[in-house]
C-alpha cells in the first residue's frame, strides 16, 4: 500500500463513520444534556443525581410528576389515589386531530394517564397529601380529570386532617373539554374553601411553567406559595400581553424572582432544599396548632 492508497482508504473510513453519525447523535443525546440557560454540556446521569438542576447555573429543568414524587416523598411511603380516573371526550372534540387521538398520544409520550398524580405519603416522616402535575402530559392542562383528582385529594386531606401540597406545572385549562375545563377552576377552588375552613394548611409549589386556569385557581390559593427558581408563572402568556400592550416586556417578567419582588409568592426555594423546607413548614404549623390544645387555657386576668 503506497501513501496515496493509504490516504484514500482513510478517507473512505472517515466517510463511512460520518454516515453512521445520526445513530451516534442519539446515544450522545441520551448521555449528555445541554443546559437551556448556560449552554453547558452536562452528563445526564450526573444531572439526574443533581435533581435535574444545572450544577453550573442552577437552572431548574422541568421534571415529570413521578420524578417529583421521588424527590419530595420518603422512599416507599407514597400511595397513589384515584389512578383509575381517565378523560372522556364530552364534546366529541376534533381540531386538526381528534381529542381521543391526542389523549392517546399524550399518554404514549408521558407514560401517564393524566396530567396530575395524587396521593398520600411522608415528607421526612410527616404525613401529607400530594398532587403533582406533569407538564409532559398534554402541557399539564387541566380538564375534568385533573380538576376531579385535585378536588378529591383536597377532600381526602380534609377528611384525614392532613396538610396538602400541590405542585403545579401547567399551560392552563384544556381547550378540548371546553366549558367543562373552565368549571374545574371553580370546582378545585371550592374544594379548597372547605379545606381552608377546617384550619388545615395548603402549600402550593409553582414550577416551570404555571399559567392560565391553574394559576387562576388552586395554584394561587396556597396558605404558603413557593416557587422554584427561574420558573415562569403568570395568568396571561407573555406573547398575549406583548400583543395587547404593544411593547416589549422585561426579560425577567413573570419569573419566580419577579413574582417574589412583586409580593406574589412567599419564597423561592431551590429544588435541593425543597423537601427540608416543606417538612419544616409542616412541623412549624402543626406545632403552633397542637400546643394550645395540649396545654390548659391560660386563666383569665381577674381585673382589667
Amino acid at each position, binding site marked *: 500500500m503506497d501513501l496515496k492508497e493509504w490516504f484514500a482508504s482513510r478517507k473512505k473510513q472517515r466517510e463511512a463513520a460520518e454516515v453512521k453519525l445520526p445513530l451516534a447523535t442519539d446515544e450522545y443525546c441520551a448521555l449528555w444534556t445541554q443546559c437551556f440557560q448556560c449552554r453547558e454540556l452536562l452528563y445526564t446521569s450526573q444531572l439526574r443525581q443533581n435533581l435535574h438542576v444545572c450544577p453550573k447555573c442552577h437552572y431548574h429543568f422541568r421534571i415529570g410528576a413521578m420524578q417529583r414524587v421521588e424527590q419530595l416523598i420518603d422512599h416507599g411511603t407514597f400511595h397513589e389515589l384515584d389512578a383509575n380516573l381517565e378523560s372522556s371526550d364530552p364534546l366529541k372534540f376534533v381540531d386538526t386531530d381528534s381529542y381521543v387521538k391526542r389523549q392517546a398520544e399524550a399518554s404514549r409520550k408521558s407514560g401517564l394517564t393524566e396530567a396530575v398524580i395524587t396521593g398520600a405519603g411522608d415528607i421526612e416522616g410527616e404525613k401529607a397529601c400530594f398532587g403533582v402535575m406533569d407538564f409532559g402530559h398534554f402541557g399539564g392542562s387541566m380538564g*375534568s380529570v385533573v380538576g376531579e383528582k385535585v378536588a378529591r385529594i383536597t377532600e381526602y386531606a380534609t377528611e384525614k386532617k392532613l396538610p396538602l401540597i400541590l405542585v403545579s406545572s401547567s399551560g392552563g385549562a384544556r381547550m378540548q*373539554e371546553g366549558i*367543562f375545563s373552565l368549571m374545574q377552576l*371553580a370546582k378545585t*377552588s371550592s374544594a379548597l*374553601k372547605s379545606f*381552608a375552613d377546617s384550619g388545615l394548611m395548603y402549600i402550593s409549589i409553582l414550577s416551570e411553567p404555571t399559567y392560565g*386556569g391553574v394559576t387562576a385557581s388552586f395554584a394561587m390559593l396556597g396558605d404558603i406559595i413557593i416557587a422554584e427558581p427561574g420558573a415562569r408563572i403568570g395568568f396571561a402568556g407573555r406573547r398575549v400581553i406583548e400583543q395587547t400592550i404593544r411593547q416589549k416586556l422585561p426579560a425577567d417578567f413573570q419569573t419566580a424572582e419577579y413574582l417574589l419582588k412583586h409580593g406574589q409568592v412567599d419564597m423561592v426555594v431551590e429544588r435541593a432544599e425543597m423537601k427540608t423546607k416543606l417538612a419544616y413548614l409542616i412541623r412549624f404549623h402543626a406545632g403552633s396548632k397542637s400546643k394550645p390544645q395540649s396545654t390548659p387555657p391560660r386563666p383569665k386576668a381577674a381585673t382589667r
Partner: protein
Amino acid sequence: MTDKKPIPLEFEKPLELLAQQIEALEKQVIDHPELENDIDRLQEQYENLRRSLYSNLSAIDHLHIARHPQRPYTRDYFDRWDPNWVELHGDRKGMDDPAMVTGLVDLGDFKVLAVGTQKGRSLRDKQQCNFGMPQPEGYRKALRLFKHAEKFALPVVTLIDTPGAYPGMAAEEHNQAEAIAVNLFELAGLKVPVIAIVTGEGGSGGALAVGVANRILMMEHSVYSVISPEGCASILWRSAEKVQDAARAMKITAREILALGVIDEVICEPLGGAHHDYDVAAANAKKAVIKQMEKLVLMSGDAVRADRQKKFREIGAFHEATA
C-alpha cells in the same frame, strides 16, 4: 335598541337587502297603488326569512350577536331593573375599575347586590373599561361587595359580559390570577344566594370570577367558553381563520351549554337579539332572576352555600375505571 336602528351583522345581510327593497317599493306606492300586493308578498317573505334565519344560527352567528356593538351592557340592565339603583365604587385599596360595575339594585321582589362587567359604549368609555376586561382591582372590588352582601344578607346577582380578564403588565404585577382565584374561593363559601347571568360574552376565568353561582343563566345569544374562539383557533388549528370551526367545536352557545348540564336556564331574547329591544331583554332577565331567586331565598345560609358547592363539584366528564 329603541332610538337607533340596529346595525346588521354579516349573516343578516340578505335580510337587510330585502328590507331595503321593501322600503324602496313603499316610496313608490303612492304613485303606483298596484305595488301594494308585491309589498305584502315581500313582507311575508321577509318575515319567513327572518324567522328561519334566527332559528338556524351557527355558533359564530351567536358569537357575533353576543359581541354586537349595540348589545345591552350591564348598566343598561341595571337602569331598566331599577332606575334608582345606587352604584358603589372602588376596591378600597387604591382603584375603582370601571370595567366592573357594582351597586344596590331593587328588583321589586328582592333587594340585591348587583355586580357586572361593563364594556363601555363610547370609544372613551370602551378604553376606560378596557373593552370589558377587568383589572385585578375590578375583581377585588367585586369581592369587597360580595362580603358586603353576605354581611347584610343581600342576595347577589352578577352579569357577565367580558372577553376575559385584562392581560396587561400591571395586571400581572398586581396578580390577576390571584384576584380571580380568590373570587372563586370566596364565592364558593358565600352564605347568600348568587345568580349569574351571561348577557354577552363569557370569556374564561375572567368571567367565572364573578360566575360561581347557585344558578347560572344565559341570554339566548350569549356565549360562554374557556378561551375565545380566536385564541382556540390560533393555538389548535394554528390559523386565526378557523374561528368558525373552533366556535363550533368548543360548544359555546347557550343551548349547547344547557344541554351539557352546566347552566340552568336560557333566557329568551327579542327576535334578532337583545339589541333590538333593551326593555324586553331586561324584563326577561329580571323575570328569570326573580323566578330562580324565589326558591333560593328559602334556603338557609349553610344550605345555599352547600347547594353552590355541590353544583360545581358535579361538573365534569370522565371515566372511572374499576380497578
